[in-house]
């Protein structure tokens, strides 16, 4: 079942690659159907998932290269399930958003997106560290192509920067993975969680993993690939980048660093809090001064992910649950904001804030949708952003008051750059060149409606979402509190 959800998109991609020639419309529809079916299948996972258990479910295991200790192991728990769903949900949205804006190499574009979906879902389901690593790396290729082929004028620089940044981190992660695997004699993720490592070893491995995860999140100061990648990527690329790829780094912390290396985690908490706080304040201030709409939202993503990393490393229920929820929220809201930029980019072919102004006169529905997501981004109560942000800050306050106080200033700054941007783009007198714009089309509206529903659903009734990972988070916190070093001594 899990493999079906994971590999259906790749299978679809192969079929499209081989079977469709010179018929872009068919490629679009085929990709939409494949990703749609994948989403429906992933809902069956939700249906069959038992949130009352912290164990990995839908387990699959078969030998791959047993001689080298390599196994194909898949399974999900309450922490990975929401990300699987987020991925399968956002992929059809991305494909639909590219309906008209992508006109060259349509078939190849769709193939890249479906392949990407398989790799990303695989990353969230993998229970074998080597399998995880392979999928983690494989995902780079379609993303590299999406930016490098369908991107903006400076796409090659951005794609290379993205690729190399990530690769450097990944190499260090590979060393860490191999070290752990060899030391423990297995690459099985559940087994590694229970394996005791010495503190020094934990610290080295933590740093190796940190190199890769922190780039992906991205944390300050290794965030500079993100604005470039976002600016050059096509709209759907930005959506998937902000919506899902950024979550992989934070997911890495949750799946590996915290449960496998609890002692090292506690050592590094101050460092991570420090970097996250810098990220929150620094990138919020930088976002304030951006002239490019996409760059502004990219920087705001870094700031928001700073909240997430703080939440995860508070190592208490509110903080971690808030962090996970905020990742989902950010996927929805940042994704929607990039879609909104895409809507006006398709019409005006610019993203420069100064070129807009007075959009509300011609595009009232657009202005309303934009307002909702702006408010969700600044964390207004009643929207999803509030629930996540509040839980994170509450958790942070319980962990360290100073951290919470500094982080909370990010809430003020966040409102500043978002509202100022909104004003310059949407309000004011009608700008030249804006006067002939059409409001959102039916297709575009279809994109936004499910995202809008989620904003208010999570805003007013986050219970089903929080319950999905509540037990798993409790289990994680239990793992995080274990003193593995002590276990070594006893042995």
């Amino acid at each position, binding site marked *: 079942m899990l493999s079906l959800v994971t590999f259906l998109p790749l299978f679809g991609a192969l079929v499209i690659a081989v079977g469709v020639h010179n018929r872009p419309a068919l490629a679009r529809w085929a990709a939409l159907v494949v990703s749609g079916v994948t989403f429906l299948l992933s809902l069956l996972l939700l249906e069959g998932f038992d949130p009352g258990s912290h164990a990995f479910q839908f387990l699959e295991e078969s030998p791959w290269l047993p001689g080298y200790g390599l196994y194909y192991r898949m399974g999900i728990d309450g922490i990975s399930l929401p990300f699987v769903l987020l991925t399968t949900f956002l992929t059809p949205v991305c494909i639909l958003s590219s309906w008209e804006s992508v006109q060259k190499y349509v078939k190849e574009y769709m193939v890249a997106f479906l392949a990407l979906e398989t790799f990303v879902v695989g990353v969230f389901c993998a229970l074998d560290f080597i399998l995880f690593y392979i999928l983690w790396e494989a995902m780079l290729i379609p993303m590299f192509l999406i930016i490098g082929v369908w991107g903006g004028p400076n796409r090659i620089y951005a794609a290379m*920067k993205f690729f190399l940044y990530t690769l450097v981190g990944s190499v260090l992660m590979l060393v860490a993975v191999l070290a752990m695997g060899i030391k423990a004699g297995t690459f099985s993720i559940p087994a590694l969680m229970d394996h005791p490592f010495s503190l020094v070893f934990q610290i080295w491995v933590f740093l190796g993993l940190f190199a890769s995860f922190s780039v992906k999140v991205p944390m300050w100061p290794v965030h500079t690939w993100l604005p470039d990648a976002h600016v050059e990527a096509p709209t759907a690329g930005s959506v998937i980048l902000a919506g899902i790829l950024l979550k992989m780094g934070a997911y890495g912390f949750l799946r590996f660093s915290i449960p496998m290396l609890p002692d090292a985690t506690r050592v590094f908490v101050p460092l991570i809090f420090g970097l996250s706080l810098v990220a929150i304040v620094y990138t919020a201030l930088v976002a304030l*001064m951006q002239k490019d709409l996409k760059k502004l939202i990219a920087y705001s993503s870094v700031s928001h992910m700073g909240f997430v990393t703080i939440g995860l490393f508070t190592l208490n229920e509110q903080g971690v649950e808030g962090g996970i929820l905020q990742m989902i929220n950010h996927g929805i809201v940042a994704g929607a904001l990039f879609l909104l930029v895409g809507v006006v980019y398709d019409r005006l072919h610019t993203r420069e804030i100064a070129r807009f102004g007075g959009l509300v006169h011609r595009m009232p529905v657009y202005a309303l949708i934009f307002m909702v997501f702006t408010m969700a981004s600044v964390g207004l109560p009643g929207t999803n952003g509030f629930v996540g942000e509040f839980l994170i800050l509450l958790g942070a306050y319980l962990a360290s008051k100073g951290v919470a106080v500094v982080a*909370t200033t990010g809430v003020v700054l966040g409102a500043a750059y978002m509202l100022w941007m909104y004003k310059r783009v949407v309000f*004011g007198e009608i700008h030249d060149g804006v006067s002939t714009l059409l409001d959102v089309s039916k297709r575009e509206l279809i994109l936004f409606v499910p995202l809008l529903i989620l904003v208010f659903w999570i805003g007013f009734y*986050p219970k089903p979402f929080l319950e999905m990972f509540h037990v798993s988070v409790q289990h994680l916190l239990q793992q995080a509190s274990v003193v593995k070093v002590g276990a070594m001594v006893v042995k």
Partner: protein
Amino acid sequence: MSVNLLILLAPLAGALTAGLLGRHIGRSAAIGATIVGMLISAALAIHVFFNVAVGDGPVIHEEVFSWIVSGKFAVHFGLLIDRMTAIMLIVVSGISTLIHIYSIGYMAEDPDEPRFFSYLSLFTFAMLALVTADNFLQLFFGWEGVGLASYLLIGFWYRKESACNAAIKAFLVNRVGDFGFALGIFTIFMIFGTLDYDQVFHMAGRKEFQSTVNFLFFGPVDTITLICLLLFIGAMGKSAQFLLHTWLPDAMEGPTPVSALIHAATMVTAGVFMVCRASPLFELSPTALGVVTIVGAVTALFAATVGLVQNDIKKVIAYSTCSQLGYMFFAAGVSAYAAAMFHLMTHAFFKALLFLSAGAVIHAMHHEQDMRRMGGLIKKIPMTYGVMMIGTLALTGFPFLAGFYSKDAILESAYAAHSAVGTFAWLMGMLAAVLTTFYSFRLVFMTFHGKPVDLHAYGHAHEAPWSMRGPLVLLAVGAVFAGVIGAPMIEAHWFKEAIVVAPGHEALEHAHHVPGWVKWLPFVAFLVGLTVAWLMYVRLPTLPGIMAETFRKTYRFLVNAWYFDRLYDWMFVNMAKKIGDGLWRTGDVTIIDGFGVNGAAATCARVAEWLRSIQSGYIYHYAFVMVIGVLVLVTVYT
């Protein structure tokens, strides 16, 4: 789900109908929907009020649905209607309904009417959610919700740059306050493990919770004091108190009905309501009460001084609101919460009346707001003059009108508190009372008396339509009688459990026994203010100009509202922009990308270039290197 929930939901339904379907169902249907929603809400509010506040019905307390649950942290949406909430329901639903009706006339020429009514109803919903909350997080929901509505309504005329900027400023200054408020909520949860009023207030009195907590570099701080002060920062933002007041005058960019409803009668009083609601906490912290008193007293006087010299008719009333909110706070600060609530209620009537009358003047003068271009309007719009005079007399504490009862109760309580801060507040309040009378009558004299300045506008001036005059008359009735009718509120224990007053803090009860001269002094203040205003603006109309010339520096200082805007612009807005720009260009582009990323890339390129250059492809190069290599090897190993 009870029918009481409709008090909130009816306005929400109206807001959604007008906002989302406004363009499909047409103007009148959209407006009709919001007004029906408001009428339902107001009718139910009155019904509840009679049950809970007039009769002796039980407090209504229901859980509506579970909101956020994460581990120990569990918060729900609830509905709590005790006597304090009941008063707020009447004020909010009642005045909001009147202002909806008034807006039919006032906004008749605006093409975006449905949007306006949608925002108004949305605001009402959020404000009602705020006052019916039974826990701090729902309070915060309403708190930020009214902030959103205020932002949308201040920026309603979004073509105007100044309106958009004012809207952002309001939102951001409030966010600064909410920053403190949120930290207060975190502390409450940290200490008590819950955010429910009932439980928090119940536990707060117990010994084991009266401890200290380390807070940043302040070292150990009394827990309850910390909570109260953090919450109060939020109140300062929302209620435009000294230092966080700068957004309120700018908020006058919004349409006048908005100023009346949000920036006078209801939203800005949320801070006062919150402090009264949290009286069981504030009573435990003399320090916090002292801070509330001082901030309130300073605001009362500060805003009144600025109000003296404003020429924009709405700005005068805005600063007046700021000043009156200061009165309410220092009343709460001396534990006279009932007097604060009483003044909140009477103020809602007469201040809404003043704003709407000003709206009628602006309407009559074709959107002229500068009082220097008005004058002599008494002949053209006598009815507006009449109601405005009632509002002015009620505000300035003319005997037996609304403000007379509530403001005097506050001043007497401050005097009767017999504490240093209480006396300070009383002095500030007395001074502010003189100034209040002066600027209020200055407004009336400049607008209605004397000779018309702009003859063209004067010629076309006309009374407002009945949809506007009706609410004016009703509010005028309120401004006359709210004091007499509401006076029982400040009698002992009228609020029952809703307000807690610690032993030794019974300033309000002692207020009855203050010496006669203390009771008479506010009336003297009224007479002084009135006389000076009459001298300067009726008898000797050249005097103000001469005085402004003579005391030029003081005048500039007051006109510029003590230069707070300029200071904040320089200190925060420009700084943030400069730092942001610096971090971006220097931090990201030069250092991280320049030295780090591209630097590393460039180094790689140089190394690669060098490596490439030695792979020249010429046999003799390789042969040469090989020979050298062999020589080196031989040398080393032999």
